[in-house]
């Protein structure tokens, strides 16, 4: 890889694409760009700084994501990379891309509802079943297989499903 041929703007674009392609280890159909975890990529003197933000405070996937970004950049010839984690502004599920929501649904996980205000957190949640689309659903457990998900069940097709919680 001959990195010297690119100027900083092109390098940044390439580094962004590499970082953006890293998948969430717990929901592999989503990339960190789909999730809104990838905040920024900066390049200077051919070293790359990637800024990410955690989803949940205790999300164990963050260490893995950091490592995956470093490895992906290394594979593409970026020898000097640094991953910076910022807390502010706080990540919210509103940052998930439309593409990400579609991919989640196709994967069988109900995407978070938009506008994750406290009203959405505690208002009447109407979650559509990702299998059959029915809105006649009920919560089975507020906490699911990972910290970002709850367990729901469709009362029409009877399938249980994961719901990506508003945050």
């Amino acid at each position, binding site marked *: 890889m001959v990195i010297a041929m690119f100027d900083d703007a092109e390098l940044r674009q390439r580094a962004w694409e590499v970082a953006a392609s890293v998948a969430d280890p717990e929901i592999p159909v989503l990339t960190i760009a789909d999730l809104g975890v990838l905040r920024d990529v900066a390049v200077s003197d051919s070293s790359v700084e990637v800024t990410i933000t*955690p989803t*949940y*405070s*205790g*999300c*164990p996937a963050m260490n893995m994501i950091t490592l995956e970004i470093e490895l992906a950049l290394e594979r593409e010839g970026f020898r000097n990379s640094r991953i910076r984690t910022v*807390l*502010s*502004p*706080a*990540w919210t599920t509103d940052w998930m891309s439309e593409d990400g929501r579609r991919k989640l649904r196709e994967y069988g996980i109900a995407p978070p509802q938009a506008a994750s205000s*406290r009203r959405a*957190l*505690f208002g009447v949640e109407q979650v559509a079943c990702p299998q059959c689309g029915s809105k006649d659903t009920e919560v*089975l*457990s*507020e*906490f*699911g*297989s990972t*910290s970002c998900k709850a*367990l729901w069940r469709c009362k029409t097709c009877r399938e249980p499903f994961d719901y990506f*919680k508003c*945050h």
Partner: protein
Amino acid sequence: MVVASIQVSETPLVLYTLRRADDALILGHRLSEWCGHAPMLEEDMALANMGLDLLGQARELFSYAATVEGNGNDEDKFAYLRDVRQYRNLLLLEQSNGDFARTMVRQFFYATFADLYWRAMMKSRDATLAAIAAKSEKESAYHVRHSSEWIVRLGDGTAESHARAQTAIDDLWAFTGEMFCYDDGERALIDAGIAVDPAVLRPPWLKLVSDIVSQATLALPKNDWMQQGGRNGRHSEHLGHLLSELQSMQRTFPGATW
């Protein structure tokens, strides 16, 4: 082999941050003790998930305390290499799990407070504490909803669950006053807009707690005598046992890493 405990320069902001970090770590650890033992699978996941939220908050707070202190300490040293008397958590949070009702009452008393607290702290003039608050308040909102539902279910359930929930409330009530106390160092931080005045949070907390408790056909004790000490390192007998487990690896194999 014994590893010496670290020294901490407890300037007001370091101490303030450590107190909140210790709250999150100790309650998070208590919840993790339920892993594999909860009465049903959904609750096993819920308790572990909430413990994980708290552990994440603790890590952010410890890291910030380390940055402010600037003495070469880090999140692991704060967690693993301080002795009982150096811990600054609320007495409520170190109390043993007991039965499921007792764990839920402890969770309910704290989550309802933490939710109000973190929401208020989002306006802190300290940018890092405000950022940690913005993440924590969403998590605590889920913890409030979860524990409130259980208080109602237990209190308004069978005679047995009602009795156990009431006993837990009676036993833990005296530890709730400490959540609303502050000392001179914290007073200065409150005046500077970095901390929030916890006493202001007590009326809305009491209203919320009273509403849920009465909905659950339970009652709050009339006795308002409150026990304090955790914020200054005077702990109940439970914390030492908890730390002996939490710290055993680092105390036995100093510096061990994954």
